[in-house]
């Protein structure tokens, strides 16, 4: 998540809106954002309803056995169609901004054709 903040100006200047989503409450997200100097939007899904609808629930993996989201990244075009997905097999290995920019470039060149 830090890597996306570091590359945020490049992502935003290309027209990519960056949004994070987890079970954290708005209050926790707000504090975390301030502490870590994150400037992109953090959405809050405490009951994991959206997370479940996306089949990204990691049951019992949170504090005291609560349900949380498994890491996943989606690149969505302006019409709402998913153009790139990253479902990691390892909690420690997340998508990098370079991968997203590459997928975005591919999407753009496809749209121009």
């Amino acid at each position: 998540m830090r890597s996306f903040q570091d590359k945020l100006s490049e992502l935003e200047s290309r027209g990519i809106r960056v949004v994070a989503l987890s079970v954290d409450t708005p209050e926790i997200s707000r504090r975390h954002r301030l502490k870590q100097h994150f400037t992109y939007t953090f959405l809050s899904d405490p009951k994991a309803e959206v997370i479940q609808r996306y089949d990204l629930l990691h049951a019992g993996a949170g504090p005291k056995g609560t349900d949380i989201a498994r890491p996943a990244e989606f690149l969505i075009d302006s019409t709402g169609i998913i153009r790139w997905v990253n479902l990691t097999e390892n909690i420690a290995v997340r998508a990098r901004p370079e991968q997203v920019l590459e997928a975005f470039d591919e999407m753009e060149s496809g749209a121009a054709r």
Partner: protein
Amino acid sequence: MKRSWNWSLWIGFLFALAGFLSYTFFTRFPITRDFPWANFLLFGVGGIFLLVGLVRAFGKPQRYRGKIVGPILAALGVLVFGFFSYLIFYELRQLPSSTGAPRVGERTPEFTLPDQDNNQVSLTDLLSAPASSASTAKAKAALLIFYRGFW
């Protein structure tokens, strides 16, 4: 004759310990993050030093110390290595398969959720607003990052 200190054992053990403790350090760099080869390299070097130390302790006991501390350090080193491998190859990979997750080419399921300031934000809002406050043009795409949370 006084037997000399078997430093190889201690160096080996320190390398094994470093292999474990440096994990979060190496995850900061793209080249060492996805597969922790740098950590395994440290474990490997540690193993060689420990082996040399053991050979000295048992092969030349009149010259080197370490017959008692050697096996203890070696066992601890193996234990640390085993625990590290368990975390890397098993624990971190315990993820749901998410076979029902939206795929490339599909429409993203719509949602409305509160942001960090309790404003209700929908996916449509995200896609119809500019990518940043510095811009006036509509966003070309949205990157949706699901994360485990900071609780």
